[in-house]
């Protein structure tokens, strides 16, 4: 594959990434040692950046899984080359999302209690079951898909230990030739892909439900909320998949354009649906003007962080990418990649605006400003330095993970990879 950037730039980027990872891991250590004191949470605003990123990555995961089901359930041939990438991306994003929630928990070492003290009336407890089942389905589905490649690699890989490892994962007789599984010839693949659809919808619709059932925060307390979550998950998942396919999927250039173009268009249409839902929801809230419901919207549109909505979410995350995808960039892989990367970043704004504003504006019962937190006398919540550094560190870990996966897992079937 032709390198996207020059060698010097590439090593520069790797150095930056390494620095971010190291500082990030140090900050994770500080967070582990000092507890939640390092975060700027307050009594009325108990959730912040980490939780926003958690729902962001869970959304990325569920969205890319649902797009993979186009290939493995509905047999859309056009997206077939991106199928594996979608599944691997879904798995990776799920892991980053779970790391975000682990760092957000006050006592992460007690996480097992969600199983041992499972509370059937808690949406969050149900969600954990969904995550476990979803992770299992994803893992097995990826394994079934990659098994023939592991088998080939167990004979072809350059190092002995690598051959051994691939052989272990191939789990097959070395002399036997494994058939490449497709939804048509492998019942398991088809069944898992189908089982994954309600799971992925449950995983992210359920994450939306965590918020939607909170009657104390009228901004969240609407039936549209879980649906908005799923739609914006599809947007972010589709956008990340398009971006990764555009820049990192080993493929012939002529074959790549139709794939990337198709994915980008699909993402653009879902983004339009997402924006319509957002418009409906905010119109209802602002027209009704019930203070608890409309104030968060006013805060998003005109509050101190108005630019997150107008610049990150709308201009950079929607208007410019839509223009590029549907207009002048529509036949250029690179432009489509850049446009979808912008959508991926824009959805971060969506997630921040879901979590933080309604927690700033709810009736605090007169808790005076200096009562809000032991650490900050600031009105309201702004993520602390540690929250930012740890978040970037964990995301950088995800990028390393992707590089590693690209090296050791065949993103395209090995025999096809040879052609490029």
């Amino acid at each position: 594959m032709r390198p996207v950037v020059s060698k010097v730039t590439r090593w520069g980027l790797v150095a930056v990434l390494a620095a971010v990872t190291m500082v990030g891991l140090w900050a994770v250590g500080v967070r582990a040692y000092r507890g939640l004191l390092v975060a700027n949470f307050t009594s009325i605003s108990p959730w912040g950046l980490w939780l926003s990123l958690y729902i962001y990555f869970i959304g990325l995961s569920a969205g890319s899984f649902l797009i993979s089901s186009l290939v493995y359930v509905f047999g859309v041939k056009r997206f077939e080359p991106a199928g594996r990438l979608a599944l691997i991306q879904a798995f990776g994003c799920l892991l980053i999302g779970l790391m975000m929630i682990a760092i957000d928990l006050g006592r992460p070492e007690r996480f097992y209690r969600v199983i041992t003290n499972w509370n059937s009336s808690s949406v969050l407890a149900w969600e954990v079951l969904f995550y476990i089942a979803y992770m299992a389905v994803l893992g097995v589905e990826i394994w079934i898909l990659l098994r023939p490649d592991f088998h080939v690699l167990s004979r072809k890989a350059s190092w002995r230990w690598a051959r051994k490892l691939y052989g272990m994962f191939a789990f097959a007789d070395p002399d036997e030739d494994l058939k490449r599984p497709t939804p048509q010839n492998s019942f398991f693949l088809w069944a898992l892909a189908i089982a994954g659809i309600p799971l992925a919808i449950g995983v992210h619709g359920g994450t939306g439900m965590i918020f939607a059932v909170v009657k104390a925060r009228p901004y969240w307390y609407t039936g549209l909320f879980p649906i908005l979550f799923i739609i914006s998950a599809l947007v972010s998942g589709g956008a990340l998949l398009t971006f990764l396919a555009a820049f990192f999927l080993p493929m012939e250039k002529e074959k790549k354009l139709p794939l990337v173009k198709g994915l980008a268009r699909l993402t653009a249409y879902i983004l339009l649906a997402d924006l319509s839902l957002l418009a409906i929801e905010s119109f209802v809230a602002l027209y009704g003007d019930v203070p608890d419901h409309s104030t968060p919207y006013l805060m998003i549109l005109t509050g101190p962080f108005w630019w997150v909505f107008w610049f990150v979410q709308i201009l950079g995350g929607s208007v410019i990418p839509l223009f590029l995808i549907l207009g002048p960039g529509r036949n250029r892989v690179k432009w489509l990649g850049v446009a979808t990367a912008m959508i991926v970043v824009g959805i971060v704004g969506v997630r921040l605006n879901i979590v933080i504003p309604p927690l700033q504006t709810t009736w605090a019962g007169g808790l005076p400003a200096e009562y809000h937190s032991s650490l900050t006398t600031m009105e309201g919540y702004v993520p602390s330095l540690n929250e930012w550094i740890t978040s970037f560190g964990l995301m950088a870990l995800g990028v390393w993970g992707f590089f590693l996966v690209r090296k050791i897992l065949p993103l395209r079937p090995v025999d096809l990879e040879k052609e490029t």
Partner: protein
Amino acid sequence: MESDSKKPRWGFLIDLRRCIGCHSCTVACKAENEVPLGVFRCWVKTVEVGRYPRVRRMFLPQLCNNCENPPCVAVCPVEATWKREDGIVVVDPHKCIGCRYCMASCPYGVRYLHPTMNIVEKCHWCVHRVERGLRPACVEACPAGARIFGDLNDPDSGISRMLSLNPIQGLKPDLGTGPQTFYIGMDNRLVEEEETS
């Protein structure tokens, strides 16, 4: 409320006509429950109304409502918080995983994150004192006698008599949480207007 039941069903009443805004309850609670710096289990909101020279200060002491139908209990993923038979909602510090879902779900903002233990805590009407036949620390400390704690199941208890003789208000009754902290003489402005510092 079953009046014939022998078991106690605790309730809390604050008579705002008597409150002088001295914050004794806040201080007593802090001392009794070792509440860390910066967070509170009970506090007093102050609102100034009227225009000079006709002005008045009103006070709204707040604490956990120990709701009849507590949203915090429903959402806890690990059953770390529950409602006891006597109506008090408690948190088990050994079970809480610190996810803070209960804090996001509480319409009254009475839960807080313990800054060093990293778990959620709240007012439990001094359950450790109540179990020994004592009154909550804030009730004991109130110099104006504005805070009344007692058994709602006992028709002769002080709180039952006050509740039957006076018009009663509660916070956010429309949410269906059934707050068990009642108020006498609550003015809408106390809820609607900003705290005056």
